[in-house]
């Protein structure tokens, strides 16, 4: 009987999980829509995400009334989902906002993963003083609630930007919230990773590698890392989903994406003051956020189930 690799097996299991695939598809559709934002803006809505149309008319109606109330959805190419208080096309901002949210979540996840691997694997493998220093550092970040730490860093960096050695980020750069979110989620990945490495480093194949005279770096790369990849894969969709939510939260509180860049969080924040007369301004980005995060979370659960060692045992039987 021909053997099958663990990842091929996981993929086979994932393909059988229709619910996870369906929600994964929802996320992919959202991503594709957001990637096509410039096409939609240019060829259908004929505007840009920051273009104000305060005194324009559409279908004979003011885009923003004299009293300051924006138009609701027209279901046409222009102002398909209505306008915001500045007369900007909500559909266009929604797609561009999604690009920004997804970009930040993507970069944040990358930062989280890289830092978590370096810190988690080093702490677990070397133990002792290295573990002590790194773990206390993680505890320090962990001790603060995510949003409070994010707001504190976000409001500080929004003005002065980030200047760290050779790295210079302007206050309104999308990289600022990405770095903040990336850093604050490191302990959530690094700590479980450290625990796993602590167990792995005592296994026979690691002892064998040591006996053969492999360096610590080589052992970590060739023996430890391949055994924690599945854990990391499970974490990726969850961290992306959380990063999207955190970005929205920070932007809502004014500590994330800075004007005039749109994001789903800033769109909800800007729409709050017009809820009684223009509820679409909060509902539309809110629904997009929910679709994206639920899609990722359920798909992430499916990935976790597919990679779960217990499940593999059951299938093999």
């Amino acid at each position, binding site marked *: 009987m021909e053997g099958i690799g663990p990842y091929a097996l996981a993929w086979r299991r994932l393909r059988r999980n229709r619910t996870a695939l369906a929600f994964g598809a929802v996320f992919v559709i959202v991503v594709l829509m957001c990637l096509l934002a410039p096409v939609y803006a240019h060829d259908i809505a004929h505007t840009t995400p920051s273009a104000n149309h305060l005194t324009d008319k559409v279908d004979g109606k003011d885009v923003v009334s004299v*009293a*300051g109330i924006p138009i609701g959805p027209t279901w046409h190419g222009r102002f398909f989902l209505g306008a915001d208080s*500045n*007369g900007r096309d909500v559909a266009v901002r929604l797609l561009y906002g999604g690009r920004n949210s997804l970009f930040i979540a993507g970069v944040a996840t990358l930062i989280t993963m890289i830092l978590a691997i370096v810190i988690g694997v080093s702490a677990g493998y070397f133990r002792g003083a290295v573990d002590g220093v790194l773990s206390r550092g993680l505890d320090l970040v962990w001790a603060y609630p995510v949003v409070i730490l994010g707001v504190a860093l976000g409001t500080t960096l929004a003005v002065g930007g980030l200047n760290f050695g050779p790295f210079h980020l302007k206050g309104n750069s999308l990289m600022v919230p990405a770095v903040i979110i990336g850093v604050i989620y490191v302990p959530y990945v690094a700590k479980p990773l450290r625990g796993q490495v602590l167990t792995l480093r005592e296994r026979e194949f690691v002892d064998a590698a040591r006996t053969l005279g492999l360096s610590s770096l080589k052992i970590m790369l060739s023996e430890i890392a391949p055994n924690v990849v599945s854990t990391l894969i499970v974490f990726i969709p969850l961290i992306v989903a959380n990063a999207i939510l955190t970005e929205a939260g920070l932007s809502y509180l004014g500590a994330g994406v800075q004007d005039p860049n749109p994001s789903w969080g800033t769109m909800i924040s800007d729409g709050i003051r017009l809820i009684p007369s223009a509820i679409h301004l909060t509902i539309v980005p809110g629904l997009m956020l929910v679709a994206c995060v639920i899609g990722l979370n359920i798909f992430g659960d499916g990935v976790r189930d597919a990679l779960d060692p217990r499940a593999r045992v059951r299938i093999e039987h």
Partner: protein
Amino acid sequence: MKRLVALPAVAAMAIVVAACGSSSGSKNETAAKSSATPAAAKNGGKVTLLMGTAPDYLDPQEGYTTQAAEFDWLSYTGLYTYAHKGGDQGGQVIPGLAQDFPTISNGGKTYTMTLRPNLKYSDGKAVKASDFTYTIQRALKLNWGGKSFFTNYIKGAAAYDAGKATTISGIKAEDSSGKITIDLTQPYGAFLNVLSFPSAGLVPTGTKMSNLSNDPPPGVGPYMIKNVVPNRSWTLQRNPAWTSTTVPGIPAGHVDIDAKIASDTQTEAEQVLNNSADIFDWADQIPPSLTAQVKSKAADRYMPQNTISTFYFFLNTQTKPFNNQLAREAVNTALDRSALNRLNGGNFKQTCWFLPEGLIGHPDGACPYGDPNGTPDMAKAKQLMQQSGMVGQPVTVWSETRSPRKEFVAYYTDLLNQLGFKAKTKVIADAQYFSTIGNLKLNAQTGFADWNQDFPNPSDFYLLMDANSIQQTNNENFSQVKDPHIQSELRALNPVPASKLNSVASRWQALDTYTAQKAYIAAFGQEQQPMFYSNRINFGTAVFHPLYGNDFSSIELK
């Protein structure tokens, strides 16, 4: 005068309601009756004021925003102050801690006055004439935003401010007699108004020369600022030692005011509409989404008030790209004031002039950039941009976080990009905004600014165009205007006494027209502000002051 005009109408409504035999006791009727037949003021109780923006400082010698003045003018009386009345009458200076109006001699350059006897601070300490000297010194040491009103006119104030003197030579105070003499470097017609600033409100000699916003010093007035939780809340507490006869014309308050910072103006307006808070801060705007509701559901406790104010974008004349007049003209030509008015819920009188309507010197000619109520000429603006050679220049546009100011700046940034600049926005927390853009080191290129009159005199507005008012921190001349013609006109116009302002009205008009032609700022609106209370408050007796908005000393419960 707005409130006084409204009262007969409300009273007439009460008569009509009574004639119809209504016995429902509706809120409208109750309010109307209380206005028509004023009863004795009810003392006691506490009301909640919600503010969308915290004062810049609660320390009287540092506070310079509208929000700060609301509290400081009731807690820190100066030698002179303003009548506690609505409309034009509220702009009249009355003696505060001084016994009477000053004797002016030496060609308008020497002011002599005497302190009222037996005055006490809120902590019981006696008031001395030398406290006035100390107060002015403290305002200079703390870099008060309007300190150029002192340094430009009081002899020796500039030397003291520069650290070249240990006292202000132009102020002499005798504690034994209470006599105070102030020598000016040049006559200044609005000097009594300068002495009426809340920042000239006396504090005891020895008060720390540092920001005491978290624990404001004792003052002389019907109220005291207590229980400060920075940027969150504080209480304007009645001074138990103050009576309506302590200083004639300054009433003792009826209620204590709990001031709280609201998360946004939506929450602020909703809470006052639902009567879970009592006063909507006049410096905030009711969001457009709630305006209709407020007008219909709270018609008996809401009244928009005209203010002498100008909303504008400053254009830094000392740095690229707005050191170029054509670039500034392009901005003024392109600015769609109707668009900005929509962002403000239609609460603007659209303008291109710096001096607002209702103030002497407001030009009555045609705006140099086309009808402010019309459609802007974008083609001409773009042509001006090409001529300026500033296309492609990076611009940072500064903004507050609160609505609709953030929305003004979003519109403005988009407009600058349409003109060919590479503009981006920088948003600063409201409480830090003006001190941030007022820091000369930052050299802010452009951004939102507004000015509400400190006193009814065009020279108050022209502090913002006066080269002598430029200072390293808390600078108010955001455009950093240094124009010899303006300076020469100010030298001639500033000494004109308030009583003779009408005689130089045309000269002020010419100056403001010149300022508009030079495009030192891009003015866009004069605002109406809301007087909006809960139904617990007797709306009929409340005073809306032309300088300080809601006069808290007039607030009483029904």
